């Protein structure tokens, strides 16, 4: 008897490979991923990547223009700000803060959001309406305004910014998880697990939750980008991270006064915000198309 | 002079060398005649009529030697001129009535739109005519239905409204694309009856696209059987049913329960319609044909006229003498 070799083309690709095929099909998403990797690299190795210390003031080089302009210096590739600090170094260190705020606030809202959503989905009579009403109330306030209100209570600062943004993005996770759970609960595989005697936590976390992850991952990317945007807005309003920390929004706020003299101090931090948010949104689009084709037309 | 005369119509989607969905089709319809086009889904029945209506968009390509309707070549007409005929002298009823009506507008609005576009009727005159039309298609309580929205109507009702829209400008040719397929069985007969009644009443020609041969037997005068984008047999109704020339027609007839009384199970034709990649070199039916000969696999037959119609087969089932 001969052993026939398996036809490779008939084997199912591994989920990861399949995902990457769908994701890499979207050129924008790959560009976004590339930019994000660059940013993560800068953030991780900021002290080594940045040519100068972010708060070191070169008093003789106030508002030096970027290198390609007249009066620019090779020492300061992107020029210096009003206190003579190297802009490039500040931007690189700013990437650190933005990513930290984004990551921390996503984690801090994703976990309670999923828990509340699961509870609301599994107890649609007992706890569901209460939780959902609470989320509706939170949604009645536009996200930035709610963040502003929270910071008004807690006071400005990095930690409070993270908390405010985490609280603000909570409702969308709760709603999304609940909707997904409600959809899955009617499926036969859940009934089967129930009949097999699965405990409630097992049913929640091992049976149902993995099948609700696709929209949650997409939402997490989207709220990552809006976290960066909101953090910068809070910083710009003077309610977020306080100077001299090199946060992009805070940098913009102090650059406002030099709008007539030094365009680079105004343009570059904003460009950094725009590019990183754009990169994440592009990645989010690619993720959504690859993970959850149903959401394709949603915004 | 026929009312409609189509010569060598081809429709393809995508590149110019793509496999045509409709392939060299000849078709004619006389004034006041009922012609049925029969075939499986994907055989190109609907696409042919969509091409005539000018409803094929890019990347679709429509080519024909001639597409003469009522003494005008529809292929040569541009936008505005075409729209003067389409919806007026030439109109169409579609398969699924539940999605064919615009959900945002009332039934009255959608009928009056046709009246305004083609007959210039406005206001009260249009409304009165719309009411007449609803009564003509036997909608009960017609007056109250004018202000109804499509979602408030049943499928049968919606199809009646669609028919009212299609006959609003008294067309010379009405195309009904599987008008009863999406409806309940009990409603199907009513709608067919209404269509035939209107056809006789207004003296219009009717092209009935269907895959239901039983309906054809009861309604049509002539039949065109299509397979994989080609007409495989043309014929008059009683003769074609009694003695089909083409193996495909025979297979279709055998699949009607009434025709196979006594048999333990319905006859079926094994296999499926050839797609883009498995198009045979010879006769398109050759992989499925029970009477296949070596010649059938190598050469494509042409549609040859015989004394009772025409068939695209090298070995017609009923021996015929060719007409020159």
């Amino acid at each position: 008897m001969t052993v026939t070799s398996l036809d490779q083309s008939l084997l199912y690709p591994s989920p990861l490979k399949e995902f990457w095929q769908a994701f890499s099909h979207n050129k924008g998403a790959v560009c976004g991923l590339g930019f994000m990797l660059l940013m993560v690299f800068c953030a991780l190795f900021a002290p080594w990547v940045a040519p100068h210390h972010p708060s070191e003031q070169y008093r003789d080089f106030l508002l030096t223009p970027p290198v390609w302009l007249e009066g620019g210096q090779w020492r300061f590739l992107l020029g210096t700000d009003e206190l003579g600090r190297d802009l490039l170094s500040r931007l690189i260190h700013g990437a650190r803060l933005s990513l930290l705020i984004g990551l921390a606030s996503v984690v801090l809202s994703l976990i309670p959001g999923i828990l509340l959503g699961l509870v609301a989905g599994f107890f649609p009579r007992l706890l569901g309406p209460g939780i959902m009403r609470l989320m509706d109330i939170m949604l009645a306030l536009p996200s930035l305004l709610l963040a502003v209100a929270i910071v008004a209570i807690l006071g400005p600062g990095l930690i409070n910014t993270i908390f405010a943004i985490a609280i603000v993005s909570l409702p969308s996770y709760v709603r999304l998880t609940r909707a997904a759970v409600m959809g899955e609960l009617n499926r036969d595989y859940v009934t089967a697990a129930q009949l097999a005697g699965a405990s409630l936590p097992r049913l929640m976390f091992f049976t149902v939750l993995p099948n609700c992850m696709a929209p949650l991952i997409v939402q997490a990317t989207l709220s990552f980008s809006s976290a960066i945007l909101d953090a910068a807005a809070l910083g710009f309003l003077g309610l977020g991270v306080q100077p001299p920390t090199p946060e992009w929004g805070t940098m913009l706020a102090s650059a406002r006064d030099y709008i007539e003299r030094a365009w680079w101090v105004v343009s570059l931090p904003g460009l950094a915000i725009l590019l990183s948010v754009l990169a994440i949104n592009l990645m989010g689009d690619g993720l959504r198309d690859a993970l959850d084709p149903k959401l394709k037309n949603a915004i | 002079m026929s009312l409609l005369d189509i010569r060598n119509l081809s429709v393809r989607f995508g590149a110019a060398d793509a496999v045509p969905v409709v392939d060299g089709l000849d078709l004619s319809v006389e004034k006041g005649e009922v012609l049925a086009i029969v075939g499986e889904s994907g055989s190109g029945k609907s696409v042919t009529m969509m091409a005539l209506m000018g409803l094929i968009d890019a990347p679709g390509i429509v080519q024909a030697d001639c597409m003469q309707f009522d003494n005008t070549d529809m292929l040569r007409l541009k936008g505005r001129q075409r729209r003067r005929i389409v919806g007026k002298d030439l109109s169409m009823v579609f398969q699924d009535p539940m999605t064919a009506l615009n959900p945002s507008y009332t039934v009255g609005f959608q009928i009056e739109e046709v009246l305004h576009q083609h007959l210039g009727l406005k206001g009260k005159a249009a409304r009165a005519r719309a009411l007449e039309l609803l009564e003509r298609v036997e909608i009960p309580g017609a007056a109250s239905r004018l202000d109804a929205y499509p979602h408030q109507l049943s499928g049968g009702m919606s199809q009646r409204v669609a028919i009212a829209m299609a006959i609003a400008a008294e067309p010379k040719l009405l195309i009904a694309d599987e008008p009863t397929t999406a409806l309940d069985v009990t409603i199907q007969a009513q709608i067919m009856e209404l269509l035939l009644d209107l056809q006789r009443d207004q003296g219009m020609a009717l092209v009935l696209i269907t895959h239901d041969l039983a309906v054809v037997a009861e309604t049509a005068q002539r039949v065109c059987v299509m397979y994989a984008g080609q007409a495989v047999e043309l014929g008059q109704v009683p003769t074609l049913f009694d003695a089909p020339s083409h193996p495909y027609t025979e297979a279709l007839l055998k699949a009607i329960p009434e025709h196979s009384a006594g048999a333990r199970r319905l006859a079926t034709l094994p296999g499926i319609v050839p797609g883009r990649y498995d198009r045979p070199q010879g006769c398109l039916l050759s992989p499925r044909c029970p009477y296949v000969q070596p010649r059938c696999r190598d050469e494509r037959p042409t549609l040859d006229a015989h004394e009772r119609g025409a068939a695209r087969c090298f070995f017609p089932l009923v021996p015929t003498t060719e007409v020159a």
Partner: protein
Amino acid sequence: MLSFIARRLGLLIPTFFGVTLLTFALIRLIPGDPVEVMMGERRVDPEMHAQAMERLGLNKPLYAQYFDYIGQLASGNLGESLRSRESVWKEFLTLFPATVELALAALLFAGTLGVIAGVIAALKRGSLFDHGVMGISLTGYSMPIFWWGLLLIMFFSVGLGWTPVSGRIDLLYDIPPVTGFMLIDTLLSEEQGAFVDALHHLILPAIVLGTIPLAVIARMTRSAMLEVLREDYIRTARAKGLSPTRVVFVHGLRNALIPVLTVFGLQVGALLAGAVLTETIFSWPGIGKWLIEAIGARDYPVVQNGILLIACLVILVNFTVDILYGLANPRIRHQK
């Protein structure tokens, strides 16, 4: 239709009370002594402190305090600003029209341009124009608008000198507030050139505030339009011999606008949040700037009830959008 409205109203009331709970809690959560917080003074004399506790009802149990708060709100008393000693409601009313004017101008800009761009992109799917619209809208959607505003000021005001840098109107003009809407008031005042000047002041802020809604509306219109154009009823409309313009606008757009309208409504909340930033950049005297300044000055009565008022506004707008949605979509209107 009436029962539809009634059901929506029923949902409105608990949300409203929830928001009052939120703003009620706001003041109690601020670290520090509530009297000091409410009076805006540090180290209040103990006797005065006790009086203030009594007057503000802070010595009562929490639930009683909440009922007091609701009672005050019901009687139209929203407290007074610590800075100006003006009633919060009055300040709100003076500043609100400025925000509305800005928001309406932004929506007008975003709505017209967004719908047109979305429709054309859908009709020319896959074309250069389509890719351009999608790219620009994704960029707009990712835009930090406070930076965008600064860029526009840098370019148009500082660089080209086309538009003024800040405010609603030049100091030269003395416009008596009649409606609170500068465009209307300048017309009423009959001062030469005032209207044009007000318009000049409005353009940049409206563009900045309208950028994100524009991006969202263009994207949404495109995808809704693409979906609708595939519908059977579009084929029916074409088979009727209607002109392409009529098919696209009467039969297509009407249906495509239903989801766009909802997005439009959701954008109103985002618009108010954006107004906070836009008003700060352009020194636009509206409620956004008012709120931020109040936070900076620890003017808590303004913060508390300003937030309440804005939340109520958003709730009301969403309610209106729901109703409009019902009007636009007969299938929803007739739901029992």
